[in-house]
């Protein structure tokens, strides 16, 4: 059972109930006041009319006639709502249906409200509203109405109010519970998934219901976060595993070389040559470590603070310029087609290393006399597309996703120098720049396509930074 009273949804429902109740109450009070005051005004009006009628009669025909006509009025009053009384200056009642004179004797016309008699079989004491006015000769006339009707309306409104409250409370409570339960169920699914993740089951994911609501969005974001965490953990696990294994081979070779030097019979020149080779081995190991570090930094998103806008066209021109002679030395054609002044927001050094790795590969694996091309074009409004094509052996399609894994090397390239990290760095660099890396077949050869988000406009930023 979920803890209803501590749930945020329930508290919201309660707040909703209170607000809703308050507005309904305010509305009813307004309606009530409007109706009652309207009814009262109507009563007062008819009282005033009757008062002036009687006063006129009094001044024309005198007290006796007036008393007679009052009696007559009371007799005719079938609904028994009239309250009338006429007294002389000595408090003698000439006519009227009240046992006692209500209120004081005044010289001005005033409105008074007073209780009259009891209604049979009830505790209720109905009220009356009346106006007393002084007539010539000290006579006082009281004209009034019983307020039964107003009281009746009052009772009805109060009753409606209670019923409204009752219905509202039941509806709000049921609705609130349903709402709380729905929200609770979704949140609880997330809580349970994360309890399980925290307990070590890293592959647990939050269920996405498919309604596309906020909870689905939350679930998707949480799942993406978990996926990313898993990727990073796997990356770390892979890298430590691979570092341990893949560095054994060069370390083993180095060890043998050193042992060999220790062994007797080696000539001085031979030892010198072995030491040189050993140093080259060590440099290769250091390069591997550097590559691992760079990849790790790129994957961890380090260096994003150092991102700046730069002219990738210029950078690529420089790299091609650097690699051109190497290609020529191998009788390879290195053609570049670079659209000028394309701006990128990112890490210039990382993009440089990335491109250098791809050109290194292309030059290394393309046979003598082969063709290599580097192109940079505008993809659409916000992307630049960098392509590096060669007509070397290419990468079999089934390995396209494998080659970016750290230390992965194709069987046929194991004999050539390299550490199996070049394309991992390319992949990490592309990801860091929110780009897309794809491999495709050049029949024969490899096409590496990299889509990178570009900066639109202002090329002056990069020029000034150069």
């Amino acid at each position, binding site marked *: 059972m979920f803890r209803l009273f501590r749930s945020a949804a329930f508290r919201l429902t309660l707040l909703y109930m209170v607000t809703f109740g308050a507005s309904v109450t305010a509305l009813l009070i307004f309606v009530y006041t409007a109706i009652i005051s309207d009814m009262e005004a109507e009563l007062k009006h008819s009282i005033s009319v009757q008062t002036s009628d009687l006063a006129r009669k009094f001044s024309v025909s005198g007290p006796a006639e007036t008393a007679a006509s009052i009696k007559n009025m009371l007799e005719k009053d079938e609904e028994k709502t009239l309250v009338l009384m006429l007294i002389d200056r000595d408090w003698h009642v000439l006519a009227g249906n009240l046992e006692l004179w209500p209120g004081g004797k005044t010289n001005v016309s005033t409105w008074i409200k007073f209780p009259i008699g009891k209604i049979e079989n009830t505790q209720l004491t109905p009220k009356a509203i009346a106006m007393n006015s002084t007539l010539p000769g000290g006579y006082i006339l009281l004209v009034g109405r019983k307020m039964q009707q107003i009281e009746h309306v009052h009772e009805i409104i109060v009753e409606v109010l209670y019923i409204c409250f009752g219905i509202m409370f039941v509806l709000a409570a049921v609705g609130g519970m349903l709402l709380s339960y729905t929200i609770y169920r979704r949140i609880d699914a997330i809580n349970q998934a994360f309890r399980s993740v925290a307990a070590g089951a890293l592959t647990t994911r939050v269920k996405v219901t498919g309604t596309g609501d906020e909870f689905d969005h939350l679930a998707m974001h949480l799942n993406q976060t978990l996926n990313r965490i898993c990727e990073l953990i796997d990356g770390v696990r892979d890298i430590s595993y691979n570092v341990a294994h893949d560095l054994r081979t060069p370390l083993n070779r180095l060890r043998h070389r050193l042992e060999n030097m220790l062994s007797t019979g080696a000539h001085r020149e031979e030892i010198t040559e072995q030491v*040189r080779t050993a*140093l080259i081995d*060590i*440099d290769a190991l*250091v*390069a591997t470590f*550097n*590559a691992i*570090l*760079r990849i790790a*930094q790129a994957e961890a998103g*380090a*260096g994003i603070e*150092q991102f700046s806008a730069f002219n990738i066209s210029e950078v690529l021109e*420089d*790299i091609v*310029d*650097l*690699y051109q*002679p*190497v290609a020529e*030395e191998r009788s390879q054609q290195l053609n570049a087609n670079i659209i000028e002044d394309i701006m990128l927001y990112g*890490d210039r*050094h990382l993009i*440089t*290393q990335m491109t*250098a*790795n791809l050109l*290194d590969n292309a*030059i*290394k694996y393309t046979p003598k006399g082969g063709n290599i091309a580097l192109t940079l074009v505008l993809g659409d409004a916000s992307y630049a597309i960098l392509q590096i094509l060669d007509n070397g052996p290419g990468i079999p399609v089934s390995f396209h996703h494998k080659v970016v894994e750290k230390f992965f090397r194709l069987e046929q390239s194991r004999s050539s*120098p*390299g550490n199996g990290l*070049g394309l991992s760095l390319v992949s990490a660099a592309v990801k860091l720049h929110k780009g897309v890396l794809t491999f495709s077949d050049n029949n024969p050869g490899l096409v590496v396509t990299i889509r990178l988000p570009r900066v639109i406009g202002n090329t002056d930023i990069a020029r000034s930074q150069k």
Partner: protein
Amino acid sequence: MHVLLIEDDQEAAQFIMKGFAEAGHQAEHSIDGSSGLFHAVEHKYDVIIVDRMLPKLDGLTIVQTLRASGNTTPILILSALHQVDERVKGLKAGGDDYLVKPFAFAELMARVEVLVRRQRPANEQTVLQVGDLIMNFRTRKVTRGNKEIPLQNREFMLLEYLMRHAGQVVTRTMLLENIWDFHFDPQTNVIDVQVSRLRQKIDKGFEKSLIKTIRGAGYQLSEKGN
């Protein structure tokens, strides 16, 4: 040349000191940051080599302190931190060069010599000359003997760097950093090919070869030898 080395790794320091001694330089060693700073302030050196991470006083702090006090001795920072932004930090603090561990002693030596040479007043000359090789900045023409040698822009920059450091060893990394502003490890011998192409233009057809390959270190432009 008078060198101060501030380095807490005893063994590494010993090798570096030995290297400088063999090259005929006078070198002193401080084992921690505070004694290093003390020496740097008390004595006049041609160059200071300081490790990035040191006990007692951090390498960057030493550099900043020296620069704040008006000391202009060239400083080379050694570091195990590889990131490009660490390098930027080191140079911003006032270092003149930044070398990542592990490094070849030849690399350190070459960089130190370049730093010490750079200290001499910058000459606003319009012509550089090494032997019969002449570089004219006004006309941007290079001649050897009486023969004009046409060079592309980068080749010109490469030759200029070699000529400015004539007689010194410059390493492949130094060329990559200074001419192309690239900080990465190329897997192919890009620099060697660039230099050999330049050498083709400069030395081919001449009796004396000016650009020499220094094994295990880099290159040197010199009129001596051969």
